């Protein structure tokens, strides 16, 4: 039985056609995978489904920040269960059960915004799974989540499938869902194409990538010196007595599980986090915020580019022709007059990194710069970043393509920063 049907329907956002003549139906109990480059209309399609669906659809959003309405996991679940008219006297017990199942019982009364990316997505899926809706929509659910959490969350998604729920997932890493998806919808050129089943293997094959990291011993002057750095949150020590030196033009990867303190370390280096110890930076520094629109100060794409050119610290990329070449490569060339706030999430990420490279500070900190981006865009951005001579520090759970740029790597484990000899 079809739960969603589209008959040659155009899907618009504010009178602008995003998808043309969509003609498909989704049956109850199906697992649908949506695939397409950033800005191809996957989220718009999802929003349309939510509008058309007769009941409330359970949903895990792309940005964990969009997911929550209350202060703590406890209050979030109270709100959910009250809405579902769960018997009052059983709500407390049910909340403990849910939190225990999703390994969040010790976070019950912690502010949601202090949870790590992985913990937030666990809470989001816990809510979606308990909404008792027959339709579950996951929009890039694992974009900033480490492998351990992905495995955990995927098991829960499999349980939902077994329970007969209709599941729709948009993800730039379809390999995660190999063997799970019944049908794959491809989004390209404003069209939704249904992939033939006998092409599934070729489709997944196209996403396989074997990283081949070559870590090198760095030489040169120091750019960042970290001495006895410790950071704590509400009486809990997150980073303990870190020491290291990052040298000029090094491209560093910092890895670690969700909640290990990677973003906190970057924020400390950027001066946005209180810490004990000493951090000395040599040269100007920019942090590419996880939420890319935070970096924008003007209205249109062109104004942003002009601002970065005007305020450039170094001149690695300031020739107009070169910039135009990159705009074209990143598919931003036709969006020069568009408002930066109407760009898709992926387009905003691409613009954010282009602006950083134009501005060229000596140190660039990148917090999950490629989350939610398609493979081609990631490779293009890596080649763009290779053109810059800044010292770059990356935090990224997705290692795809990073072997082309990373020259040294660290792991944050048990509150310590460990230099890695190789990345397997």
């Amino acid at each position, binding site marked *: 039985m079809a739960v969603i049907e589209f008959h040659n329907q155009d899907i618009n956002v504010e009178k602008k056609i995003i998808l043309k003549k969509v003609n498909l139906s989704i049956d109850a109990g199906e697992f649908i995978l949506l695939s397409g480059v950033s800005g191809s209309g996957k989220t718009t399609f999802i929003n349309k489904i939510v509008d058309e669906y007769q009941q409330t659809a359970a949903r895990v959003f792309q940005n964990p920040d969009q997911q929550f309405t209350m202060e703590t996991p406890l209050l979030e679940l109270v709100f959910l269960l009250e809405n579902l008219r769960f018997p009052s006297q059983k709500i407390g017990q049910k909340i403990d059960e849910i939190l225990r199942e999703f390994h969040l019982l010790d976070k019950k009364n912690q502010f949601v915004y202090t949870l790590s990316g992985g913990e937030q997505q666990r809470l989001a899926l816990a809510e979606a799974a308990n909404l008792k809706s027959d339709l579950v929509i996951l929009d890039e659910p694992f974009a900033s989540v480490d492998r351990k959490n992905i495995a955990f969350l995927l098991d829960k998604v499999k349980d939902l499938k077994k329970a007969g729920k209709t599941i729709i997932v948009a993800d730039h890493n379809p390999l995660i869902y190999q063997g799970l998806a019944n049908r794959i919808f491809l989004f390209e050129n404003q069209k939704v194409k249904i992939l033939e089943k006998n092409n599934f293997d070729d489709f997944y094959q196209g996403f396989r990538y074997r990283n081949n990291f070559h870590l090198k011993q760095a030489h040169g002057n120091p750019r960042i010196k970290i001495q006895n750095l410790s950071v704590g949150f509400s009486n809990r020590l997150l980073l303990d007595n870190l020491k290291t030196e990052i040298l000029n033009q090094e491209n560093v990867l910092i890895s670690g599980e969700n909640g290990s303190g990677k973003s906190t370390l970057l924020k400390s280096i950027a001066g946005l986090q209180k810490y004990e110890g000493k951090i000395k930076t040599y040269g100007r520094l920019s942090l590419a915020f996880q939420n890319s629109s935070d970096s924008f100060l003007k209205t249109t794409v062109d104004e942003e580019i002009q601002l970065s050119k005007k*305020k450039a610290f170094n001149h690695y990329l300031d020739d107009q022709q070169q910039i135009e070449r990159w705009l074209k490569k990143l598919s931003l060339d036709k969006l020069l007059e568009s408002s930066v706030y109407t760009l898709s999430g992926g387009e905003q990420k691409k613009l954010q990194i282009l602006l950083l490279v134009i501005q060229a500070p000596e140190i660039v900190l990148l917090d999950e710069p490629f989350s939610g981006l398609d493979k081609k865009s990631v490779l293009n951005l890596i080649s763009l970043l290779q053109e810059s001579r800044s010292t770059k520090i990356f935090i990224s759970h997705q290692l795809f393509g990073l072997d082309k740029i990373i020259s040294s790597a660290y792991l944050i484990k048990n509150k310590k920063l460990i230099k890695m000899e190789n990345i397997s």
Partner: protein
Amino acid sequence: MKPALKFILVFFIGLELAFIRSLWLNIFTIIGAMIYLLFKRVSIKKFIWIGLIGFVPFVGSWFMYFNLSIDHSAPFAWIMALRVYAYMFLGGVVVYSQTTTQLMRSFEQDLHMNPTFVYGILGALNFLPKMNRQIKIIRASGKMRGVRLTIFSPQLYVKAIYNSFVWSNNLSQAMYAHGFLEDAKRTHYQQKPLTCKEILEFLFMIILSIIASLIK
């Protein structure tokens, strides 16, 4: 006492303070509120904070009303000056003895206020600390791009307003994704009905405040 009832009581005493010039009402309000806050184990730091914040308006009011009154009446100056602390400690009762979530949920459960209004306000209030963090991020982001944003920079507000639009949209989507439907019935976690004792306490406090205001 239920937070919503407490809020109404504070509001009522606040109105009395505004319209009745009574030294005893001020004194009783301050002492009563202090005892209540001590009973609720509010930290001494917060008492000191209220004391410090109120000190300048307290002294200023005393001298202003003393000098402005035709007969240079000291009792009148004391009434007006102590009103500052009476209002501050009353505010302290609302702010420090319960969370906003408890207060708004009590409005819904005890006073049957519309849940859409209650959870809309609550959701919006939960965005306030986020807004604060956002302003810091916008300023840091400006600094990193070589643009100094001060509190007078329009860019700061344009971005803050943009974020508010995004958040308001996110909030309605998130509330919907939590199964919230306007005018739909809901159950209530840890709901305790209003007791006779609470209503009597409320009435007793109202009567006490009226008596205090009548003492000459």
